């Protein structure tokens, strides 16, 4: 009976985390995950579990992010930092094509397969921005194959949301598609919530439920440090076979569930999503937009850190001879003036219009466009806003101003 | 007069007026005809009539030194020309010139003003209709002012 109940969960000890790395590397994956860099936990290529932010945690609030030492050796004892996985699936800057002038026109060259990089070239070196023009630097000749370690539930939802944008319509983005299909995902259930987290409100966490190959819950006991593993795919099961593991006991599974349940109760923020689309649609002219615009620096930080923001621009460049041209796609932000420029001027010239565009898109128009909210409650936009603008507070203010508003009680999410 | 009455009664501008009022208006109406190039009225002249254009095209012009006559607006079949007859001091602000052979019904403004004073119901009905014309011209002028096809920066 116990066996039947624990069939879906397995246990491997902390010491075997290296085996996970090895299993993934052996399969040709470039392992990326959280690591400490410049005072923040960011996502980078990792060489071993030692690169993980062992014993670190983060303290987050509006406009505030600090790393702090934990009094244990947890591998995942923090929440999300300024990076998200979108930088691997939807690169911040990528060359779409190169073109060479010919006598009677021009030729378009796609990937420069003539000079592929050495097999051990780190991914980061392949994505160098061009210095003016870079006819000799190829974009990755073969699609990168990433294994993401430590993907949080909100981030799984963010990836699913970007899937709808780049794969779900009449057109498919080939850059995204190949990276996405190749990606191996090791999710981690959050053992604690951050000060700006509100995934529980958005129904996007803290427990990973879909979209992973393996999902881990980290458990630290005085005498034991281990992971409860859930297998999401056959691919995940195959990787698990390479790690010494055993079926979980019911107590271990319960403990893992309790950890996640406790996290859900710790959310630093909450957002009432009741009829949120209608709420924002009927408040396009609300005075609150002027108030938030008075604070907003239109710096675009929120869009850069947001794991679902997908806007991009293209840049066409030539070399000095005018013989070679390239088109690069880079992340863009609806907070810039250029974003909405049509001949004569920008459609959204005021900060008010740009903040309103961003927030209304995230929480309302996104639902019409893609059948889902564009917000996963990760809290990054709150933490990384230099003036601590808080999307949950903005929604609350608009909601509270409505005549028939009833205050929703805490914890009712 | 039979014909004029029918024409006026069927014109959208007069739609909804009762027969008695139509009768009063017809009493002030005459058929007129202007050749291409002929002035219908000139800026500064007394404004004592308005026109229901039946055929042709009329340009409202203003003379700008150095530029010559500038056409502000053209009016054609079915449109009403002139509302200065309604508003003191009853002077035309623009020239009106037929740019092609134009036939119209002229309505004597002095005659109508007197009838409107006697019969405020008629006055109100006419004012309502002219208010609509003035509103249309004002909206069009505002849109024209925006210079929507120009390059702005």
């Amino acid at each position, binding site marked *: 009976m116990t066996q039947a109940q624990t069939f879906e969960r397995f246990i491997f000890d902390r010491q075997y985390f290296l085996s996970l790395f090895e299993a993934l590397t052996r399969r040709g994956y470039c392992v990326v995950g959280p690591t400490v860099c410049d005072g923040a936990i960011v996502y980078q290529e990792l060489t071993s579990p030692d690169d993980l932010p062992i014993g670190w945690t983060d303290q987050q609030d509006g406009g505030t992010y600090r790393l702090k030492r934990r009094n244990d050796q947890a591998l995942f004892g923090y929440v999300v930092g300024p990076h998200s996985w979108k930088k691997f699936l939807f690169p911040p800057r990528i060359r779409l094509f190169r073109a060479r*002038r010919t006598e009677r026109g021009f030729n*378009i060259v796609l990937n420069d397969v003539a000079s592929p990089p050495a097999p051990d070239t780190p991914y980061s070196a392949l994505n160098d921005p061009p210095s003016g023009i870079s006819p000799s630097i190829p974009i990755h000749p073969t699609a990168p194959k990433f294994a993401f370690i430590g993907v949080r539930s909100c981030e799984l939802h963010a990836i699913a949301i970007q899937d709808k944008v780049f794969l779900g319509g009449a057109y498919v*983005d080939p850059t995204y598609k190949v990276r996405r299909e190749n990606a191996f995902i090791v999710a981690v259930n959050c053992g604690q919530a951050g000060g700006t987290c509100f995934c529980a409100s958005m129904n996007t966490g803290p427990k990973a439920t879909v979209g992973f190959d393996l999902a881990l819950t980290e458990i630290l006991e005085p005498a034991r440090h281990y992971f409860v593993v859930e297998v999401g795919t056959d691919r995940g099961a195959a990787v698990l076979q390479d790690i010494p593991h055993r079926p979980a006991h019911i107590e271990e599974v319960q403990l893992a569930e309790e950890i996640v349940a406790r996290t859900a109760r710790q959310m630093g923020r909450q957002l009432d999503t009741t009829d949120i689309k209608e709420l924002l649609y009927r408040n396009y002219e609300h005075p609150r937009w002027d108030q938030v615009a008075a604070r907003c620096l239109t710096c675009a930080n929120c869009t850069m850190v947001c794991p679902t923001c997908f*806007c991009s*621009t293209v840049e066409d460049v030539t070399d000095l001879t005018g013989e070679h*041209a390239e088109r690069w796609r880079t992340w863009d932000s*609806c907070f810039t003036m250029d974003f909405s420029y049509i001949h004569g001027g920008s459609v959204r010239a005021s900060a*008010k219009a740009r903040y309103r565009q961003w927030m209304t898109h995230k929480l309302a128009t996104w639902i019409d466009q893609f059948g889902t909210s564009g917000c996963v409650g990760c809290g990054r936009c709150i933490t990384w806003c230099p003036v601590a603008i808080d999307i949950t507070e903005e929604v609350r203010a608009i909601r509270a101003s409505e005549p028939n508003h009833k205050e929703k009680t805490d914890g009712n999410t | 007069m039979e014909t004029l009455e029918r024409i006026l009664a069927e014109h959208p501008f007069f739609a909804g007026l009762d027969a008695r009022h139509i009768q009063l208006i017809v009493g002030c109406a005459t058929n007129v005809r202007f050749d291409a190039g002929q002035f219908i009225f000139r800026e500064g002249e007394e404004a004592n009539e308005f026109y229901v254009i039946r055929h042709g095209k009329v340009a409202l012009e203003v003379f700008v030194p150095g530029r010559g006559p500038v056409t502000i607006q053209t009016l054609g079949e079915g449109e009403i020309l002139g509302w200065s007859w309604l508003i003191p001091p009853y002077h035309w602000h623009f020239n009106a010139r037929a740019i092609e052979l134009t036939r119209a019904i002229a309505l004597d403004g002095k005659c109508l003003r007197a009838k409107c004073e006697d019969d405020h119901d008629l006055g109100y009905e006419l004012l309502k209709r002219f208010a609509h014309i003035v509103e249309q011209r004002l909206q069009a002028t505002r849109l024209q002012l925006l210079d929507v096809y120009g390059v702005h920066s």
Partner: protein
Amino acid sequence: MMSDPMIPRQYRISRVRRETADTFTLELTPVQDEGTFSFAPGQFNMLYVFGVGEIPISISGDPANPRTVVHTTRVVGTVTRAMGTLKRGDVLGVRGPFGSHWPVEEAEGNDVVIVAGGIGLAPLRPALFYILSRREKYGRVVLLYGARTPEDILYRRELGRWRAQFDLDVYVTVDRATGGWRGNVGVVTTLIPRAPFDPLNTVAMVCGPEVMMRFTALELRKRGVGADNIFLSMERNMKCAVGFCGHCQFGPTFVCKDGPVFPYRRVKDLLAIWEL
């Protein structure tokens, strides 16, 4: 190799025609014989000038002629300026066609009113070609066209030909008369109240600057044309034309894929919101 919607195909300019002081028409044919280019009236292409940039331009040719792609462009920015210097034989990158189209089939059996302002006549021209080639399927067909000045009137020769046609009512007006202009003076909306169509059985297709379309739609509604029977073509910044770049959002819509042609009912409220 997966087909990448961001990669342009090469088209050679077979003809350049100056339309007005700041507009020109390019006729393009594929460099590689790729067969035919089929599009629906109202759709647009992304045109790429080597090394300079790429912009959305509506298609203004005859949909029945799939060998030539025609674009009429106004010089308003870097890319259009560069495009204006191209000559016969030069090559452009083309992606498309993209977007929604004018309801030319749905309009069968009805009167059709086409209201164009300025360069807005260019995206409506394919609809006119289409309708005139099946003229018997429509009721009255009326073209109301407003330009800034007589010198800014596009497709003069064609307008002359259409005007001479007994089964098409063409009314042209200018905001400002110049020179010896003998035609109408006044904004294009002033043509609507007396234009010959049956408002209850009319499909209206409107293209021009946004303000002009707003006023036009109001005037058409006043005349009695239903909000579902009025169609507008919207313009927004576009980088990709396939729904990825996010630039062309207009409320919940993406102009590139939900538009550019929208039923008035769908965008009416959005048009009233400033800086949307």
